[in-house]
């Protein structure tokens, strides 16, 4: 099934925000919005759900922390409990202060890198990925709102024209 989308282009973020509110109030479906920079409050205005990426970071941090404890306990306490300069290798807790720096670093390492990888995967970003913005100006100074056409094209176009758009395109998807 081919569906039509209208791409309305704006040249200002405040105009865009007002337009988003109007389009939402008129119960039209916003497919996507492309902006050159983060417009604060746009996700709320569009009704996007919050991202859970911070929660994943916390979990990755826990993994890193556990890994560090397991690794150092295994290597220093279980496998080779040697006396290195009088350090008490009898149990993990006796020599724990020496392990703190690496426990900390590995927590940060896992949390940061795995979260970034998660972000790249969820947002589908990788080195040979082709860009999908509808117009090259959306990375410069233009804001594009894609609205799905359900019903009359002409009335939707004229509705969008009144929201302060500077250019309108109707495309098949």
């Amino acid at each position, binding site marked *: 099934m081919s569906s039509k989308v209208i791409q309305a282009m704006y040249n200002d973020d405040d105009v865009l*925000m007002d337009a988003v509110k109007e389009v939402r109030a008129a119960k039209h479906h916003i497919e996507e919005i492309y902006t050159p920079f983060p417009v604060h409050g746009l996700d709320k205005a569009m009704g996007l759900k919050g991202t859970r990426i911070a929660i994943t*970071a916390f979990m990755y941090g826990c993994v890193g922390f556990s890994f560090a404890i397991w690794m150092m306990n295994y290597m220093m306490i279980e496998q080779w409990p040697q006396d290195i300069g009088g350090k008490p290798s009898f149990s993990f807790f006796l020599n724990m202060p020496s392990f703190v720096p690496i426990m900390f670093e590995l927590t940060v390492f896992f949390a940061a890198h795995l979260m970034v990888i998660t972000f790249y995967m969820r*947002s589908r970003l990788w080195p040979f990925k082709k860009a999908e913005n509808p117009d090259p100006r959306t*990375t410069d100074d233009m804001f594009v709102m894609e609205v799905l056409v359900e019903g009359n094209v002409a009335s939707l176009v004229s509705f969008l024209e009144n929201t302060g758009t500077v250019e309108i395109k109707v495309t098949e998807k």
Partner: protein
Amino acid sequence: MSSHYEAPIRRPLIVGNKSYHDITVEVAAPVEGKANKLWWTVFTIALLAFLWGVGSIMYTIGTGIGVWGLNKTVGWAWDITNFVWWVGIGHAGTLISAVLLLFRQKWRMGINRSAEAMTIFSVVQAGLFPVIHMGRVWNAHFVLPIPNQFGTLWTNFNSPLLWDVFAISTYLSVSLVFWWTGLLPDFAMLRDRAVKPFQKKIYSLLSFGWTGRAKDWQRFEEVSLVLAGLATPLVLSVHTIVSFDFATSVIPGWHTTIFPPYFVAGAVFSGFAMVNTLLIIMRKVSNLEAYITKQHIELMNIVIMITGSIVGCAYITELFIAWYSGVEYEQYAFLNRATGPYWWAYLLMMSCNVFSPQFMWSKKLRQSITFSFIISIVVNIGMWFERFVIIVTSLHRDYLPSSWTMFSPTFVDIGIYVGTIGFFFVLFLLYARTFPVIAQAEVKSILKASGESYKLFRDAGGKNPAPAKIVKSVKPTKEIIKNTSEQKNVLLGSLGAFDKATQTADDLKLISGVGPKLEGILNNIGIYSFDQVSKMTDKEYDLLDSLLDSFKGRAKRDDWAGQAKNLKK
């Protein structure tokens, strides 16, 4: 919109009347343009220094550490001094991008990209030293706990030198992904502007197909915030761990608990100084004075002043504790620093680090770019000597007087240090020509709140205007109307004269293509109304062009008559 409200007391962070597009163009300009002679000259010098360093490193590895000035007593000197110095410099980048982000400091946006680049390039330099100062570089991988054929022989996790391995590699890799993620929208901007196919390909590859969807931005901001939250403790921990190399030892002069925070403060101090050195040059060379303003430099000077004072406090604390401790060894260590054979290094460190930042209390001095530049270099000299003094003066005279000795570097020590400076500048110069040196996406997001023209407009009582609607500040028309009153009369003869007494002038600026300047010129000729403009034909256009110095052909191209006809209604 109320979201753009900013207290009038705040000075603008983006100077001049900029639009979003202007920011794009000005950030892209150094990348899209060609390198000039000055760039090639500096690059060549840096490259030669780098090559000299490579030679010195090869010589060291091929011949042995004995080619350095180290001896049995002083086993660490220039190598670790330079290591700590470079790591310290690297800290400012993360401070600027992470800590200032957590504190919502908008002024970071003009400088964070370059500060992070500086971090990465200087951590690369720092990372060389722990490797090349090894006696057996080829066994360097033994520091990693990799399962092996020696009954699986592991590393010793008690050593701060191993902690260093984890700290530096985590720091470098996390800073790198933080920086790169922030670069994606800016690479995308360059990709979408690129004309040549090769550049298009490269920036498409680098930008990872960034598209700028609302959801992408939402995640992007969350990721930046979490990374900032992780990088802040990281930056504190890394230099703390570096300071443990000394603080956990038993050497008088090293074994102190003040080192972790004191080293971190020193790192911020020297790092900001290096950012200042680089940005003062960069804003000039790359024409980015509108984004890296005097205010940015002043604020960095204030950070330098504060951290310099913290370092000063630490020096005094150390001296007090040495006296208060009653330990002769500790007391002698400080007496030796001040009056021993390295008194000049101690004096240099004290005067550069304790006194020079105090000049920044003077508003006049900290707002002076020349002065800031000089101080920023002085600070880095002082901070190099701080590490040198801590390392060498504590080692060359300690418990046993029979092991007392001196240290002097050889040309190889110096060569490697100069080489890392060369390498740093090679990387930084290449960066400045190929990367968007200002985070344009972030700067655009503060344009309406902190842009000069928007602030002025708000102060005058206006709401936030759309970018196109900003009234350019009207300057008195300097365009010289040619003294051809005859042509003027012919022109007015066919357009009809305008009588100021009976008619009201129209706002000619409403004609697209006519700005305040052109309006002034038209008024000077005697054209005030849409009615007059609407009567223009080819003949009048030519007449008008003969009266104008610039703007030739514009009236016809933009069809002023047709526009005026519509406006008249």
